[in-house]
């Protein structure tokens, strides 16, 4: 992108007339792609019953689901930041045998179908799972609890934060860190005063991606945590259930989910780009 900007706009005006430096034909498939994404959202918007919209989204079950979704997504985003930041640092800066393999494994939840993730989580934290017995012994029952929802969301969202932050770390390079170290700063000070502030936009956008992914989590939650109002039935699960009997409510709630997601992305975009500039 920077190379495209470096070319004087005047030279390229004959090609596209937009100053982008791109050949004109690129725009046609780009627009088709854009319409492909936006059209289903428009179709949903058309279906919303505006007369009963407010009533539908303020029903007891809808409010419980929205509230639960916001709570669990926030908790899993915090977990993603706490666990994912050190992971990204290690993957971007450390050198050890098996680093490539470690990266592939960490990114596994990205390519794993969420249902498969849910099944794997059952065999790990479930009552008869790998850790389930020990957890039960400690008096912790994860099955069908809100904790299970947070675990499922964190599992699927973590790679988004790691990937985003690792990219920022690689782009930022190590020059400033090296200078700080030669000036006598110890590794913790370098991390706190140089590295983290430098990649903060990447960290924020990574956290936003993780939050959005957690908010939309469905398959792993349904498989691993179950579905009970106020405890495990998050907004996507509520939408899936409402669709059985009340498609209007399902559409209204879908719109709420889209609006929440868009607001979060916009808010963070503003912050992240300010940081970058």
């Amino acid at each position, binding site marked *: 992108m920077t190379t495209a900007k470096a070319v004087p706009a005047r030279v390229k005006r004959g090609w596209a007339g937009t100053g982008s430096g791109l050949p004109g034909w690129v725009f046609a498939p780009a627009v*088709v792609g854009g319409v492909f994404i936006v059209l289903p959202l428009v179709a949903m918007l058309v279906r919303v019953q505006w007369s009963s919209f407010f009533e539908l989204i303020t029903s007891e079950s809808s409010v419980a689901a929205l509230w639960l979704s916001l709570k669990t997504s926030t908790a899993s985003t915090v977990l993603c930041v706490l666990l994912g930041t050190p992971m990204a640092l290690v993957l971007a800066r450390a050198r050890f045998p098996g680093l490539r393999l470690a990266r592939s494994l960490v990114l596994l939840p990205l390519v794993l179908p969420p249902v498969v993730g849910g099944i794997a989580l059952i065999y790990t934290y479930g009552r008869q799972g790998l850790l389930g017995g020990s957890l039960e012994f400690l008096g912790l029952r994860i099955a069908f609890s809100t904790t299970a929802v947070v675990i499922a969301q964190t599992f699927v969202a973590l790679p988004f934060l790691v990937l985003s932050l690792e990219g920022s770390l690689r782009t930022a390079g190590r020059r400033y860190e090296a200078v700080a170290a030669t000036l006598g700063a110890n590794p913790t000070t370098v991390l706190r005063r140089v590295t983290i502030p430098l990649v903060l936009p990447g960290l924020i956008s990574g956290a936003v991606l993780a939050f959005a992914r957690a908010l939309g989590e469905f398959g792993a939650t*349904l498989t691993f945590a179950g*579905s009970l109002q106020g405890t495990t039935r998050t907004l996507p699960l509520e939408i*899936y*259930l409402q669709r059985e009997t009340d498609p209007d409510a399902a559409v209204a709630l879908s719109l709420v989910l889209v609006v929440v997601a868009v607001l979060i992305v916009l808010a963070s975009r503003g912050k992240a780009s300010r940081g970058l500039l």
Partner: protein
Amino acid sequence: MAILGVGCSSGGSTAALSTSAGSAAPAAAGILTVYAAASLKASFTEIGTIFQAENPGSTVTFNFAGSSDLVTQLTAGAPADVFASADANNMTKAATANLVTGPPVNFATNILTIVTPPGNPSGITGFADLATPDVSVVVCAPQVPCGAAVASIESNTGVSLTPVSEENSVTDVLGKVSNGQADAGLVYVTDAKNAGDKVTEVDFPEAAAVVNTYPIATLTTAIQPALATKFVDLVTGQEGQQVLAAAGFKPAP
């Protein structure tokens, strides 16, 4: 749609081909598309095999899913010849959308039963045991037919359950019991039978009072109306009823 058609032309042309081939084919042969409730999978697959043997040249293809999903797909224009629902409510929805030819025929009934992990570790003997505080019970949500049946049994018996999860489908309930996450679940007799030794079945007398009826109908959109009628006749006839009875279904009144 026109824009999407450019990218997905192969899918569109395949659908168009099968439509024209279907209308040109003689009534006895062709592809019959049956939309049936998920709980009918085992028995309808068997009935489909019988149908193909009795009608040489015909092929039966099934779409098994939750009844309300099927109605949604049919309403959206999915091409099908026969619809078999797991409850009267979803068949009524299809009829309201003018999808159904003539009055639907009830062909089977199903009742609920308790399932537990193999060996019944919690020692459940009846419906009232499910209300014990330390027993974690999974049921269907009241919005889906199997959950509506649970709600009826609760009000009939005066025993109110506090489930740890209200699932969207009976198969989700079964899964959470068979993998040991829950101590007990309420599913249809046919689901319990189909799960074999992955679960232990605990029948309870109160279940008999809440009967779920399965209606079947041919569709107005049918490409193979003659075959569709034949299929419905097979299901409601002696042969079909035998297959359904073997799967645990009771005959319709």
